């Protein structure tokens, strides 16, 4: 046994080097696009005056959940500003949102595919296990090789790490849709696409949104690691505080991560289950619309009667003029 070793790691390294040399153009494109998206979003968020930005975040909270949520958002985000971490927070938020967007854009179609095809599912399952359990740091190394340092390898590593729950929960949601309901779609002659859009996706939506929520949470945990490869944001501060053993910065940056995490979690969780939040602005608006719809015919009728009455009044008033 002595001296015998399978150089698996070396093989992977060779493969990575080969990919770097041969797919250079592709990686360049990815780099440009991702950097543009993240920086663009960060600049956009930072361009908004801070009080207005806080107000917007609070409003989103109210729209999907409740005014309590809005109040909590306003307070905690003000705390971020008070800790002078606003810019870093917005950078991290941009990184997380873009990474989530990419991850979801890949995860949901993969989830749908594996829900409809057992072979795909059998192949995807071990791959997803691998992606999720491989320590997140390891992704950073080839990511740097391909994309050099900065925000791009951070986003790529985050996407890989955060992808699996999105695929899994999408698949679970679609497979979990009542078989008889899908059968009903088939029995009335719906095409597979019509069944997917009209029955499976809407009914699986709570589970899919739970998946998106998980993707965001994982992305946020990974975004801190992205600080190691030089992505700007709260992660970078945490890494700095660790390397210089400055607890104060570490605690503050960590707290800001927690605040953003809680905010994103509550918002996405509420998006998946709108019926559970009747006091949200969306819920209130929906009820108004429903009430207006049922009241409409009656209202239209009374309005008709009123105009009729007015016309009668007018003609009776005009009458004396005519005779006179």
């Amino acid at each position: 046994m002595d001296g015998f070793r399978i150089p698996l790691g070396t093989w992977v390294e060779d493969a990575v080097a080969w990919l770097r040399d041969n797919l250079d153009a592709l990686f360049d494109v990815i780099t440009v696009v991702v950097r543009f998206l993240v920086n663009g979003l960060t600049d956009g968020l930072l361009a908004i005056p801070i009080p207005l930005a806080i107000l917007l975040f609070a409003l989103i909270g109210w729209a999907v959940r409740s005014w309590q949520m809005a109040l909590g958002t306003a307070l905690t985000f003000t705390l971020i500003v008070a800790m002078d971490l606003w810019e870093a927070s917005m950078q991290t938020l941009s990184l997380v949102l873009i990474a989530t967007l990419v991850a979801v854009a890949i995860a949901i179609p993969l989830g749908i595919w594996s829900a409809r095809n057992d072979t795909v599912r059998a192949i995807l399952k071990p791959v997803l296990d691998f992606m999720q359990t491989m320590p997140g740091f390891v992704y950073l190394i080839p990511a740097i090789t391909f994309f050099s340092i900065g925000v791009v390898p951070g986003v790529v590593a985050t996407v890989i790490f955060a992808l699996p729950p999105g695929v899994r929960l999408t698949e679970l949601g679609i497979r979990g849709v009542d078989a008889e309901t899908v059968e009903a779609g088939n029995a009335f002659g719906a095409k597979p696409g019509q069944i997917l859009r009209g029955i499976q996706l809407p009914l699986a939506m709570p589970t899919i949104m739970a998946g998106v929520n998980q993707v965001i949470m994982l992305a946020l945990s990974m975004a801190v690691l992205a600080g190691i490869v030089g992505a700007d944001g709260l992660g970078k501060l945490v890494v700095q505080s660790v390397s210089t053993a400055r607890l104060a910065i570490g605690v503050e940056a960590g707290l800001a991560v927690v605040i953003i995490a809680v905010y994103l979690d509550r918002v996405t969780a509420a998006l998946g289950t709108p019926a559970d939040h009747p006091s949200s602005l969306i819920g209130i608006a929906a009820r108004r619309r429903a009430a207006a719809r049922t009241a409409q015919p009656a209202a239209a009728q009374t309005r008709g009667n009123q105009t009729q009455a007015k016309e009668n009044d007018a003609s009776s008033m005009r009458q004396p003029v005519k005779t006179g």
Partner: protein
Amino acid sequence: MTAPAIRVEHVYKVFGRHPERVVERLRAGATRTEVADAGTAAVIDASFDVHPGEIFVIMGLSGSGKSTVIRMLNGLHDATAGTITVQGEPITGVGASRLRSIRRDRIAMVFQHFALLPHRTVADNVAYPLELRGVAKDARRAKAEEILELVGLGGWGDKLPSALSGGMQQRVGIARALAADTDILLMDEAFSALDPLIRREMQEQLLELQQKLRKTIVFITHDLNEAMLLGDRIAVMRDGRIVQVGTPEDILTDPANDYVEQFVQDVDRARVLTAANVMERPRPVVSETAGPRTALRQMRDSYTSAAYVVGRDRTLIGMITDRDAVKLARSGEVSMAPVLRPVPQSVRQDEILMNLFVPAVESPLPLAVTDDDGHLVGVIPRVTLLAALGPGPGATEEIPVQPQPIPVSVIDEVLAGGETPPGSGPSDREAVL
């Protein structure tokens, strides 16, 4: 007979790795358990026709293959072997898009657990088949309202299905199937998930709708009473095979084998059998042209105290009692007309037994049974009515009746300790009542 709406010929359905091989073995005579190692034989050699406008019930216990059969009728399951044609068009071995268009235009389905789309309103659920067909929004909305009105759910269109009770949800399910406006309706245990009172109500409503709409309905159930109530014809399934196809009466009175017979033991026979099934040849019948003496003779021969009087074409005219006949005969009258009494109770031959008890009790004579034109076609003595409720094929055959009691005087003599002369009692006589 018109062409069948659905024709099923030697259809097999096997779930497993090599279904064709299993079918070969089944064709060679293997049983379902013998091939269980290679696959599940859900349906074995099923053949039947469904006629246009009838309610065809497929009945069997769970695992008998009835749900698989109904799913093959609209291609949700493809048949492993055999052919199925719907309105002359084969649906076995055709492509997916052809199947879809047949489902869209010819066959609608109602599901056991309603299978409504919970995120759509009731009206949108009902309009779903129309939406799939590409009908414009206003038109399908109007149609949905119209159909909802038909099933008694007018004004509920804006609600979500979750706001409705089980019975109402299934009405939405039925409304959706009706909105598809197909000639054929498949109903898979449509009422089994409902509680008994609602189920009864829905069954009656279905029959009512069927009176108006005259669809071809294939109805699956495990409940024999439901099958008997709804079915124009019934197919009984067991272990994947169809063991008998026939009218409810056929199945009840002439079960094909022990299994069916055991099955029908529990059925509420009073609701299935009709007067025509149990009636006997009318015996004390006198023609109106006959005289009172003939009537008396008839009554004496059949040991009854009254007789029905019929016209020349066997139209039921009235009845005559023995006392009246005796009076007439004594006064030398030759026509029975002056003493004819109206028939106290008569029933139509398609009346179910359930509705015969009260008339039978109130009728002094065996209950008269008439056909649609008022002709006397038979009578039902009370014993026959009772016997018909018992299980077994013998129930509708002739029954030996109880001997008439010994006259009181004879009993008194015996009790007094006196000797009874042999043969003096009329105990060998029979009464028909």
